[in-house]
């Protein structure tokens, strides 16, 4: 951190401050709209897995938290050698490994994210940095698409995941270093697409840098710089004054789990019973104007690809982005680091050591959120939404008719957790502005026939408010090739809250109902598929909130009519008796059944993780914090 220049905000023109803040945010919007339109990778342009950021010249983040944004390492490495017209590129996660004792993290967390940074100069002086990184299609490694889950089966390292580009200059004083670009492109299975994506990032940043320069032209670089510092101050103040008072003082502990890493930890067992879940232990303390998050007790780094290479500064910003929910209009920037404290032992799967594998770090990223929500659930005595799981990632590759390797990637959202006041939302992706691939696009671009894209009946966790539903899809492969799928929460579904039940976990079945039927584990890398093979994808639903027996029978009836809840679940989970064929509510029958169910069931709990998960925890001797299961 660079505290060398701080400026008391009283000397700052408050109106200019708002103008500068608006201009910084507009710059982000602008970069994103360019990248949306010009990028090639579907993960970038449809699933919106890319982020832009603006930093001050001291590398402090000014724009809305892009949680991975971090360029301190770049600045340290190139001190005195940053010139106008330079463009930096990197995707490496670990850097400076030749330094004792551990080296550092660059801030980029898996190799698929190619990051471009441009310094912004005004009249020869460095005034800011702009950054854009996005998830490209392929940077090499053992599996097409560069997101291997765990090949080989006994574990992997970052070396299986693709080329590592250290922080280097792609352009030096405006001149493209073609050798650097060629070296990078040569290590991708899809060099043309990668070039298209890198071009998209570089040119979007060039346009965006103009905005910062214009600010300096209009208000003078000193005034703009002063505003930059004050923006960070103001964020910290807003968190202290407007957000923290909403969280009750106290210490709350919750553990949530990533559903294993795909590596069998108990020899002789299959993956469903032998893959040990990974625990995030989150201890949240709120005392006055300080929020502390302590990860002591979190599982050690794993052999699979679920390690998340984050340092304290990253976790501060990551939690900061969640604080925004308490005051949506606050721009959360680097200022959050002054308010949030993070305790993070080294060598956990949230702080892995080189060369741990990190490709699928998004799984613990979701788990972090639900662990945090579990703490808040206790802090607010239930006034917090139930859990969810945000995505399923698939890859499919085949040889096209011209003999070239071709690739498709889809990312599905899932159902969100029920809220204390409303049902969860069906099929949504955590990444804002993410889109699925239209069936008509999919079928015209890839050898796939998508015969069903639907909501998964009964996937939402029952509750007074029901969890959002996940997808159900049916695919027919029209060309032989390979398939990969990965997701959290097959064995450990999103928990329900305040009497609500967990959502249904994911499930993937190849050739269902045939002799070749195969239930795929939720992390698989190189599944061979033939022309005509059928795949069923069951997405995850969100957890329910509140007692399902208190759900309005009319809402249960509507869910049944709409095909979101089966009549069987209406009866068994909600105690609602419906009469065929018009699904009329049997009032007397419902009352009697609800009374009966109420008597027979165990007392309601704040958290319901599901019997399947509890059984798994028992098998691995995992003890949970009392009152959280």
């Amino acid at each position, binding site marked *: 951190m660079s505290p060398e220049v701080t400026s008391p905000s009283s000397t700052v023109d408050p*109106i200019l401050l*708002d103008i500068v803040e608006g201009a910084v945010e507009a710059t982000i919007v602008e970069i994103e709209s360019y990248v949306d339109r*010009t990028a090639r990778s579907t993960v970038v342009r449809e699933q919106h897995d890319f982020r832009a950021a603006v930093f001050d010249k001291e590398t402090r983040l000014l724009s809305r938290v892009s*949680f991975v944004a971090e360029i301190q390492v770049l600045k340290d490495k190139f001190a005195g050698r940053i010139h106008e017209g330079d463009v930096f590129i990197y995707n490496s996660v670990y850097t400076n490994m030749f330094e004792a004792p551990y080296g550092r993290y660059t801030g980029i967390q898996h190799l698929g994210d190619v990051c471009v940074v441009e310094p912004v100069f005004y009249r020869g002086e460095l005034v800011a940095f702009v950054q854009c990184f996005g998830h490209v299609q392929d940077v090499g490694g053992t599996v097409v698409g560069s997101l291997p889950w765990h090949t080989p089966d006994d574990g992997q390292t970052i070396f299986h995941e693709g080329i590592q580009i250290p922080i280097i200059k792609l352009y030096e004083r405006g001149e493209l270093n073609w050798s650097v670009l060629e070296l990078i492109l040569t290590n991708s299975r899809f060099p043309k697409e990668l070039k*298209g994506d890198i071009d998209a990032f570089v*040119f979007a940043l060039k346009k965006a840098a103009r905005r910062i320069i214009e600010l300096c032209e209009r208000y003078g670089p000193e005034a703009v710089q002063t505003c930059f510092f004050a923006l960070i101050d103001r964020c910290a103040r807003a968190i202290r*004054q407007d957000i923290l008072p909403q969280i009750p003082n106290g210490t709350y502990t919750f553990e949530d789990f990533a559903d294993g890493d795909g590596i069998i930890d108990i020899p002789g067992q299959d993956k469903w019973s032998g893959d040990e879940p990974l625990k995030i232990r989150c201890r949240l303390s709120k005392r006055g104007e300080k929020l502390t998050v302590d990860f002591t007790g979190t599982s050690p780094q794993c052999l699979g690809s679920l390690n998340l290479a984050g340092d304290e500064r990253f976790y501060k910003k990551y939690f900061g982005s969640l604080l925004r929910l308490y005051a949506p209009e606050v721009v959360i920037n680097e200022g959050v680091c002054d308010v949030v404290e993070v305790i993070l032992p080294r060598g956990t799967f949230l702080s892995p050591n080189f060369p741990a594998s990190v490709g699928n770090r998004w799984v613990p990223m979701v788990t972090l959120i639900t662990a945090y929500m579990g703490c808040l659930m206790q802090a607010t005595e239930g006034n917090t939404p139930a859990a969810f799981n945000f995505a399923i990632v698939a890859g499919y590759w085949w040889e096209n008719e011209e003999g070239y390797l071709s690739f498709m990637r889809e990312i599905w959202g899932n159902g969100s957790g029920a809220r204390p006041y409303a049902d969860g939302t069906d099929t949504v*992706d955590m990444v804002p502005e993410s889109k699925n691939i239209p069936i008509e696009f999919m079928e015209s671009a890839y050898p796939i026939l998508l015969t069903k894209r639907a909501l998964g009946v009964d996937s939402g966790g029952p509750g007074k408010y029901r969890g959002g539903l996940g997808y159900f899809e*049916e695919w027919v492969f029209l060309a032989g090739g390979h398939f990969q799928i990965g997701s959290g929460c097959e064995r450990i579904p999103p928990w329900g809250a305040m009497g609500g039940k967990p959502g249904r976990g994911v499930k993937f079945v190849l050739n269902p109902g045939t002799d070749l039927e195969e239930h795929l584990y939720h992390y698989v890398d190189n599944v061979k598929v033939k022309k005509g093979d059928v795949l069923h994808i069951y997405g995850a639903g969100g957890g329910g909130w509140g007692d399902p027996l208190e759900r309005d029978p009319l809402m249960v009836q509507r869910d049944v009519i709409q*095909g979101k809840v089966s009549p069987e679940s209406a009866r068994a989970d909600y105690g609602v008796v419906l009469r065929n064929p018009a699904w009329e509510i049997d009032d007397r029958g419902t009352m009697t059944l609800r009374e009966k169910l109420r008597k027979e069931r165990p007392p309601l709990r704040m958290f319901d993780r599901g019997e399947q998960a509890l059984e798994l925890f028992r098998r691995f001797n995992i003890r949970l914090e009392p009152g959280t299961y």
Partner: protein
Amino acid sequence: MSFRVGIDTGGTFVDVVAVSDRGELHSLKTPTTPADPSVGVGEALEKTLRLLHIRPSEINSIFHGTTIATNTLLQHSFGRERLGLVVTQGCRYILEIARQTVPGAFGNMVIWEKPERLVYLENVREIRERRNYRGEVLTPLDEGDVREAAREFKARGIQQIAVSLLHSYVNPAHEGRVRDLIQEVYPQSSVSISSEILPEYREYERTLTTLLDVALRPTMSTYAERLEQCLKTSGVGAPVSYMKSNGGVGTLAELKQSPVSAVLSGPAAGVLAGAFVAGLAGFRNVITMDMGGTSTDICLVEDGRPFITTEGKVDIYPLKIPMVDVISIGAGGGSVAWLGAGNSLRVGPRSAGSHPGPACYGRGGVEPTVTDAHLFLGRLPQTLLGGEVILDRERAATAIGELATRMGVKPEAAAEGIIEIANYNMVGGIRKVSVERGRDPGDYYLVAFGGAGPLHAGHLIEILRIRGAIIPPLPGTTSALGLLVTDLRGDWVQTLIARQDRIDVRAVSGVYGELERRAWDHLGREGVPPERRRVVRFADLRYVGQGYEVRVEVEAGEITPAFVQTMIERFHRAHDLAYGYCDRNDMVELVNLRVQGIGLVDRPTFKQLPMGDLTPGKAALKGSRSVYLGREQGFQRCPVYVRDELMGGNRLEGPAVIEQYDSTVFVPPGQQVRVDPYGNLILERIER
């Protein structure tokens, strides 16, 4: 004499502009009648006849802009319970799933609730049928399924039915048959099929557009009929055309047939007007800015033509039909200033509207608005609209003073801040329509109109470093003028996906031939004589792997390999212009072919102002008042001019205020105004 009349129905007023065949321009306003907007149109027409002393037969054409379609969507008053949807088996949940998108920032998934879908899930029916992307039948249409669905719709009174089947953009036969079957079973139903409304791939967006079309149909048909009726009552026999979202006009018959084409009818008129006025003043490249009470509509005009998009949105609904690429910013005269977290100053998007209105209206509003800030700083007079609205400076001062105290600044700094923040909101919108399209706003003039636009033009010139602004003669009724200067316009599209090395010239030729034939016939049906029909081709292309296309105009004439070469080259150039780079070694892909049919309409001619001296005449100078000119200069006495007394060729330097019936112009220091022969004010920086 004969008159062409433009009638623009807005949120509070019906604006009328009438132009005689001698080029005299008249304008007037009557109140909107929200219960039945056609009544307001009738009243406006009556008033026009009365005030201008003209006979109904002297009106030879009427052009109409309306926000009724937009409002029907915004207020969700289209009768959701009467809407039905027929889809291919496997797609029942198409609206629920949509594109799985959560708007806003990271973390919103936890709290965001999906708005109610356009059609209740109970009213979505799957039928057995399926084609692949080449249009080949995989599963034949099950007519029994269709009949059963139709019977069910009939039994439940679901009368407006959209049909959207997978890959129907390649082969519409199943959809056509489904419509016939539904209407056979249920003759009272009204059916829109997606292959007619929008034969483009991406099923969710196509389905939604089709649904909006059928949802708007009853409202728009009734409206069109009432409109015809009230014209008949007034004895006006002239044909009526309505403004379409694409910046052209169409007949009322087309409005009934394709109501979705009217969703941006209102804003489109403003854009066309801005483009036209600028053209008269000699400017071909402009950004139009129509600033009203609650919002500002912004659009880029290049070479006299407004930008058109097919990625528009109305409310929460993406709409893929061609529309003027107008962006609406929540910044208007009534936008409310408030303090957000950390005491940051925010302006809008909430507006005080006309009730309670800005604090200075004295109708119970206490929150400071943009209008209050202008009044407090001396830029607005004490009365508006010729005395109809009286402004109370004390109330404005109280509202602003309170805000200033909370911010710890002087009241005039707070007022200036409100205006600056509103300006920056508008700058954001102007950047969106220019910079995001690869255009530098510095190359454009601004056309500032709407009641509040001329107050902000001067500041925007400074912030954006643009060259100047054009302020039309009647800023408050400029939109209505736009209705009179528009051609008939229709759009036809067909998806034809092919990589550049696999483009089949015969297929391209066939599609263009068919689209051109449809355009030609349509213009014929609209009564355009052949010599006034124009047909223009466009193509949407992208680099293989991109998800968005870039549209280019392509040549007329025979489709040859050379034609394809030229088309590809135009794409590279357009990509370079828009995004700053292109790659001629990269593979390009054709996605859509488009044709626009234009029926040329005569432009009215406008009378010029009498020419005066360089210095405005004595009658033009009304007096002076104290106006705030920024932190350094503070309040200074500034001259106040009467716009109606200015003559062609007059010049005046800022600081100054120019007042007129429906608007006020503020000329900041360092800028000057000249009056052009058509009465436009050209506001520019003084280069020293």
